[in-house]
């Protein structure tokens, strides 16, 4: 029983349980890093890489076939395209609604309106920066997870031959 499971790429029950507990914590940490990109070090790429490593933790613990059934590679691809689309659409809004491409048109508006100052700053400040961070974070999670998933699938096919 253990040999079959090891051949499929899964790990033991202890590792699987702990990975299942850690996955939501890692995702929450990655969302925290993404959302606070305009106040603390972090932002889109850093938080996205943490989120992708959460997915990689699942792949290592449960085996790639199991993860592929639950979250397919096409789903990650759509998630990634949505992230890119939001970024370009927000940038073009700056062109049509305000003065130029990527202009910060949300300053002094009710949502994300305040200007960060020295010392403490609230979360809904910074104009379009948090929205761009979320878009980049979506793109990076989707992109890096899809890359690792496909590489794992190809290696598994190569071993089975």
């Amino acid at each position: 029983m253990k040999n079959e499971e090891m051949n499929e790429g899964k790990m033991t029950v202890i590792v699987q349980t702990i990975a299942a507990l850690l996955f939501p914590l890692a995702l929450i940490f990655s969302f925290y890093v993404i959302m606070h990109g305009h106040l603390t070090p972090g932002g889109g790429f850093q938080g996205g890489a943490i989120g992708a490593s959460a997915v990689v933790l699942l792949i290592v613990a449960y085996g790639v076939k199991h993860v592929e059934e639950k979250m397919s590679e096409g789903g990650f691809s759509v998630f990634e395209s949505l992230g890119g689309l939001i970024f370009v659409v927000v940038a073009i809004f700056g062109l049509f609604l305000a003065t130029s491409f990527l202009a910060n048109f949300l300053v002094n508006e009710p949502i994300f309106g305040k200007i960060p100052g020295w010392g403490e700053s609230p979360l809904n400040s910074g104009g379009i920066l948090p929205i761009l961070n979320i878009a980049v974070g979506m793109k990076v999670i989707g992109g890096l997870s899809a890359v690792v998933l496909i590489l794992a699938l190809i290696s598994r096919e190569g071993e089975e031959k």
Partner: protein
Amino acid sequence: MIYNLPFLTVVALIAIGMYAIIFKRNLIKIAVGITILESGVNLFLITLGYREGGVAPIFTNLPPGISPDQIPEKMVLPVPQALTLTSIVIGVAVLALILSFTINIYRKYGTLDAGKIRRLKE
């Protein structure tokens, strides 16, 4: 002299990276060589921004004892950090691409030796 140490490391990393790319024949070692070269250039960009006695350039997190009009002298430069971050992202994408190519070459040719690939049939 101690402030020149990062620049000497940069030169060493770039030399090791170029040696690996030019003289090694295994495709994985060439990919590692590109990564080392990129690490050297990133280290160079960050070291450019260092100012002696400076703190991290976080806008909202001033350490105690510094007032906002002392900022330009007491913080390291933030622009090279943004350049380095962009370069790291590009390096990840290039590395993923090179490794995918290596996997495909291994499946088609059966070997990872850069000298033998052209002469083999698939």
